[in-house]
Each structure stands twice: as structure tokens, then as C-alpha cells.
């Protein structure tokens, strides 16, 4: 199911794209994820097809594209969260450093401990603020961690400490939406993951909370590799180094499959995209 012929793995198109941007990847840039001929199915439905791309370390990579083109689907493949969805099936190979994430010997639970995730809707556990942040450490069974210190550091990192330091025992659900989302970010970075995935983290937030979180993302990208899905073009230009544009196209039976149109440094994608579809989308002329 997960293994495919390796011969075709270097796709013509993606090589061309890389050639178009000679300055985008220096040879010694570390690659965290490499997708090779990824096809993703939900049951019989091909949701995303033919994705070939690389995601560099300690950079912010943004996924943009119209609704339903499979951005969430693809980002959930990066930490194997799609395993929870019945009918999910992936073809091709998704490398995390040198390891195919979908190889038989990989333990998805271990993968998720290294790759944290923040969701579109703030989803704190119905537990205290403290226990929300401590959760990841508790389930990884790290006994030696100084929990108080981890909680404080993570909340500080997520720019939430000052607002909650006097009520760490309060329920996470009692916070405002923006605070909840920062709590979710604190929770995700408490375990000190290698990568943080964010699926539209600001879509339910007000502009001020959004700015706070964008600042935070920029800040975090010094230490973490970040992949973010966003519908907001300005946000993509503000926070991301690399942008990948996805589009969806209907096949003969009228079912829409998403595919990667192009990806590269954010300023190239927004200022001089190679594909017309990208140009239309980033300039807001999308049908």
C-alpha cells in the first residue's frame, strides 16, 4: 500500500521547478520532509494526487490553495494523523529525514511525538491549563522532566504566560478563543518536537490574536520546522519562507482531486509565479 516503484521518484516537473529557482535551495539546506509520488485516497476517492515536494528544516512552509484541494489531507500525512480516518490510504513515499514514514516498521505514535500539530479550531482538553500543557510530556512517560518548568517555558514561548500565570488551575476551555489557540501551541511545543504542523491556526481568531500568533510562528521558526496551512494570502507572505500552491481539478467522473501546482520561495510564488493558476489565485482572481 505504501510502497511504490522507486525508479520514478524523481519527477520531471519538480526538478524543473527547482531549476527555475536557482537560489531557493542551497545544497546544504537540510530537508525534513520529502514527498515522492504521493497519492492519497479516502476509500475510492482520490483526494490528492502526484505530490512531489521537499520541506526544508527550520523554515516556515505554507500550503495555500482553494477549499477542498487537500491541504489538510496532506498536512495530516506528515504526522500520520490520517491513520485515524477510516478508508484513508496513501501511495508513494513520504520521507521524514531518511525514514519513510509509511514503512511497516514505523510506529506512528513515535512519529507524532516528534511532529506536533495545531488545529484549525482551538481544541484544548477539558482539563486545567497546566494539565493541557503537561499532557504531551505525561503520555511520553518522561519522568525526569521538571513539569513546572516545562509548563512555564512553553506558555512563555507561546506568549500566553503573562495572561494565565495566576490561574494555571483554570479549565483550558474557560480561555478566550485566541488564548485557547496559544494554549494549543504551548501544548504542541511542550514536548519539544522537531516539527510543528499548523492547519489554519488563525482562522477562528480576531486580527490581534492572529498577529500575536504570526509573530510566534516567526519566532518559533528559529528552532522548529513549521508547516502551516492558510487561506490568508497576506498571512502566507508575512510568515512563510516557502509557499506551496495546491489546486483541485475534476476528473472525468467529476470528482475533484487536489494536486501541487508549484512551490518555491514565497516571494517568487507571489511575485513571479510560473503557472497561470498560481498567478490567478494569489492575485485573487480565482474562479
Amino acid at each position: 500500500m505504501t510502497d511504490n516503484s522507486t525508479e520514478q521518484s524523481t519527477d520531471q516537473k519538480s526538478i524543473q521547478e527547482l531549476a527555475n529557482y536557482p537560489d531557493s535551495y542551497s545544497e546544504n539546506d537540510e530537508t525534513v520532509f520529502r514527498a515522492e509520488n504521493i497519492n492519497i485516497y479516502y476509500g475510492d476517492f482520490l483526494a490528492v494526487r502526484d505530490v512531489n515536494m521537499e520541506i526544508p528544516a527550520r523554515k516556515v512552509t505554507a500550503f495555500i490553495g482553494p477549499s477542498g484541494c487537500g491541504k489538510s489531507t496532506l498536512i495530516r500525512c506528515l504526522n500520520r494523523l490520517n491513520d485515524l480516518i477510516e478508508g484513508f490510504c496513501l501511495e508513494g513515499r513520504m520521507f521524514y529525514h531518511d525514514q519513510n514514514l509509511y514503512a511497516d516498521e514505523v510506529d506512528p505514535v513515535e512519529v507524532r511525538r516528534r511532529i506536533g500539530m495545531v488545529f484549525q479550531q482551538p481544541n484544548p482538553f477539558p482539563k486545567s491549563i497546566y494539565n493541557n500543557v503537561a499532557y504531551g510530556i505525561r503520555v511520553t512517560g518522561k519522568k525526569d522532566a521538571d513539569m513546572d518548568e516545562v509548563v512555564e517555558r512553553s506558555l512563555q514561548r507561546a506568549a500566553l504566560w503573562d495572561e494565565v500565570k495566576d490561574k494555571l488551575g483554570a479549565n483550558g476551555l474557560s480561555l478566550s478563543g485566541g488564548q485557547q489557540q496559544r494554549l494549543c501551541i504551548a501544548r504542541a511545543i511542550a514536548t519539544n518536537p522537531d516539527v510543528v504542523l499548523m492547519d489554519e491556526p488563525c482562522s477562528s481568531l480576531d486580527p490581534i490574536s492572529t498577529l500575536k500568533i504570526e509573530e510566534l510562528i516567526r519566532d518559533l521558526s528559529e528552532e522548529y520546522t513549521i508547516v502551516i496551512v492558510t487561506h490568508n494570502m497576506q498571512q502566507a507572505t508575512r510568515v512563510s519562507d516557502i509557499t506551496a500552491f495546491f489546486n483541485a481539478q475534476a476528473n472525468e467522473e467529476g470528482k475533484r482531486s487536489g494536486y501541487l501546482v508549484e512551490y518555491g520561495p514565497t516571494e517568487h510564488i507571489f511575485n513571479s509565479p510560473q503557472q497561470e493558476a498560481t498567478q490567478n489565485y494569489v492575485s485573487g482572481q480565482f474562479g
Partner: protein
Amino acid sequence: MSSSHQLSHKRSAKADTDSINQKQGSRQSIGETAWTVISGLCLVIALIPLFLVIIYVVIKGINRLDVAAFTELPPPPLADEGGGFANALIGTLVMVAIGALISVPFGVMAAIYLSEFSSKKIAKWIRFATNILSGVPSILIGVFIYGLLVLTNVTGYSAIAGGTALAVLMLPIIVRTTDESLQIVPRQVRWASVGLGASRYETVLRVVLPAALPAIATGLTLAVARAAGETAPLIFTALFAQFWTFNPADPFSSLFSPIASLSVLVYNFAAVPYKNQQELAWAASLILVAIVLLTSILSRWATRNRIY
């Protein structure tokens, strides 16, 4: 901005609010009133039986609800006064406890499997099966346990057989309410936990179950309330006893003899021509109604802490 401009602005705003004012006597407002009255009347009619039952049972039962009722054994038919239903009260408690002891662990675990681990297809069939089980008339459950445990002399007429019958009765209620309570916990919360590196069972134990607990508790109380009032499954399984058959000093072996229960006491005593026994039946009914009320209030109280 000129003042005349402002004025005209105001006037048009006034006109707008006029048009949304209620028009008395229009067809719409008559229809509205008619519907409100009709549905209100139906509500009252639906509530009448509830109030009548409660009032009637209270009037009939309250004066026989003395200390003796709770401490003495059922009176023989010809005793003019005295006696109580102490053994039946204990019997009901014992059998409901046995029923809960069997059905709660199985029911809750089954519901966890159903909601968290099974595939959609299997879940659909299990839900269908539990719905059928909950629709089976309770007398059939009594006959089934009678055939399974009583006739075969595995337990004979006994508290165990009665409790087992109640367990079968409670099982589908517990499975369904627990299943529903778990389903209400948002998928996003499960994903957050799994995304942090928790395994699926850790997610269930640490996040999903605690979040669903108030709702599950509600379901359990309702199942207990339902079981406490059941008569039919007990007639063939626990029978009845005029005497103490439950011996706290040796609880285990006494579970294997027939045992009294409030509901069967009501059934036995309500239709006899002896006034004393009839009155006792009313008092026992009042206790049963009180148990249902109490558990409903308890479950409301548990729901108050509901998270989702």
C-alpha cells in the same frame, strides 16, 4: 452633514421600524396564537398522567410510610395492621446492585469498543443489535433467564437470577447512552491527544472518558432507575419471600435463595383483598416512584457538569 439631510435620514429609519411592528388581528398573528394555545394544551394533557400518578401514589402511600414499613417483614394476609417491606427494599437494592455490577463494566467497555475502536460497519450492526435488545419486552428477558438459570438449576430462583435478568435489561441502555456520550466528545479533541503522541487507548482513558463521564453517569443512573422499577423479569427469576433471605453475615450463599423485591411486592399485594397488604403495596409504590425521581434528579445534577 446638513441638518435637513439628517432629518430625512431619521424619518426613513422610523418608517422601517413601523413595518416590523406587530399587526394585531392579522392572519399571521392569529395563526401564531392558535398554535401556541394548541401545543400548550397538548403539553398540559401530556403532563396530567404524570401528576395524577404522583399525587395519587403519594396520597395512598404516605400514611403507611412509617418506621415499621422500613424495619418489619411483610405481614401475613390476615394481620390487620403492622408489617413492612424491609426485606423487599433490601432485595431490590441487592438485585439492582448485582445487575449494575454485571452490566456496567460490560456495557461501558462494549460502548468504548463501539465508539472508539470498531469499524463503522461493525459499529452499525452492534448499535442495531443493542436497539433490538432494548426493545425486547422485559417479560421475555425474565423468561430467558428463567430458562437459562432457574430451570437448569444453575442458580434456581434466586437473587443472582433476578440480578442477571436486570443486567440484561440494563445492558442495552448503558451501551447506548455511553456510546452516545462518547460520540459527543469532538473528534478534534481526540486528534489533539493522538497528535501529541498518545496512543489510542491512552487517548480514551485520559481525555475521552473523563470528558464524557458526566454524560455516562447520567446514562447509568437512568439504567438503574429503570431496573429498580421492573417487575416482570423478577417474577420468574427471584420469585418472592415473606422472610429475610438475605443474610449480611453470609451474603454469598444467601444470594442463591429466592428474594423479595419492592416491585414484586406491589404486584403481589395490590390485587389481594386484604386492606393491610394493599396499603403496604401503595407505600412500596411510593418508594419506587421516589427512587425514579431521585435518580432523575441525580442524573440532572450529573448533566450539570457536562463538558460537551
